[in-house]
């Protein structure tokens, strides 16, 4: 499906997982043209849209960048008007509106994850046509197909930060190992009430599996 995107696409693996006290959002770092040429080995697909809210992008890079730029503006304006940090649901909703109202032209999907005072850590997925769904964890992008089984088997609610980091790292490594348009380094962002921590795992430090 990604090979039909004109121009640069993030054939990709993205995920977001809630744990006890926070949420981890992660992605690979490869951008490719038509699945044949890697146009960037180190692109950052985790966009910060507010202090405790990140979103990760899949699909056409141009579309995703345009949408997140507009969303970032709308969310910070909303936050100033309300005089309080925005809800994760509000940020996800902004993305959804943009995706749904422009569904004919756009080819981008998003995962929004973050922490807010009202509901704590949350993950929202905004699919290609503009559907908005809240889930305890979610995976997306072309590489996600290969890790549905792994994620279903290994996810448990209320994991600790370390367990969740291990789960996300393993999932990304497995997907990057099987999907030729996902690769590079693994970017992970841990979002909690206290703050935001960015973890980067280079390719050679990723977990290796039996046939590697």
């Amino acid at each position: 499906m990604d090979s039909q995107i004109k121009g640069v696409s993030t054939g990709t693996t993205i995920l977001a997982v809630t744990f006890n006290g926070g949420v981890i959002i992660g992605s690979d770092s490869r951008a490719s043209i038509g699945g044949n040429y890697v146009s960037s080995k180190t692109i950052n697909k985790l966009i910060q849209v507010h202090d405790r809210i990140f979103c990760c992008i899949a699909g056409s890079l141009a579309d995703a960048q345009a949408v997140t730029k507009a969303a970032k503006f709308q969310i910070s304006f909303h936050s100033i008007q309300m005089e309080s940090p925005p809800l994760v649901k509000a940020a996800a909703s902004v993305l959804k509106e943009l995706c749904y109202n422009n569904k004919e032209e756009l080819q981008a999907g998003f995962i929004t994850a973050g922490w807010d005072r009202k509901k704590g850590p949350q993950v929202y997925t905004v699919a290609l046509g503009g559907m908005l769904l809240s889930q305890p964890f979610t995976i997306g992008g072309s590489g996600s197909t290969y890790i549905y089984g792994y994620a279903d088997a290994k996810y448990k609610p209320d994991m600790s930060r370390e367990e969740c980091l291990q789960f996300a790292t393993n999932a990304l490594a497995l997907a990057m190992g099987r999907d030729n348009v996902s690769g590079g380094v693994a970017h992970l962002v841990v979002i909690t009430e206290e703050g935001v921590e960015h973890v980067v795992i280079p390719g050679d430090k990723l977990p290796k599996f039996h046939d590697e």
Partner: protein
Amino acid sequence: MAAVYMSANRPENAFSTVDLVPEWAQEEVSTGTTIMAVEFDGGVVIGADSRTTTGAYIANRVTDKLTPIHDRIFCCRSGSAADTQAVADIVTYQLGFHSIELDEPPLVQTAANLFKQTCYRYREELMAGIIVAGWDKRRGGQVYTVPMGGMIVRQPVSVGGSGSSYIYGFMDSNYKPGMTKEECLHFCTQALALAMERDGSSGGVARLAAITEEGLERRVVLGNQLPKFSNA
């Protein structure tokens, strides 16, 4: 009155059979499926789901996709049901003949290569992804995968069919060399259950078989007995 309405709205279908036969009966029968095979010391474990579809209709919900080719050699079929049945029949005949000439049980590698020859020669016409697995005296348990296009490669563990995409990650992280037969059966059951949960073209029961020097042991895990991995 009804006929006028239909042809006015769908002029291109004025003379087609689309109204005489339901849509699901016009699609080709496919084993959109999940199949897998694992080698262990002393034999192989093979597994498959049991769903055969014609479009959105499940033509057979208790299909047996694990087809015997010889006493200790099986194949797991995915792709077009007709194509795989035809190819399996051809190979069964060829292998049986070869085994009689040789006057000893055939090698798994021979069976796999026979599949490859047919699948490669007729690659444009066929839609067949096959996993050949079995036991022979020379090399013990072996798994050979012959995907669409007609390549052959031996692998310690192999998955195939539409549902296989979803379990590559699970397979890569959970397979360890040196598993016992029971561990392999458990691994296959879990992998099939995960794939059947996510793939719309896979489902029904999980069929498993363990092939060793001693013989064949078949198992069926019914839908309600499959491991559950629900979240949220």
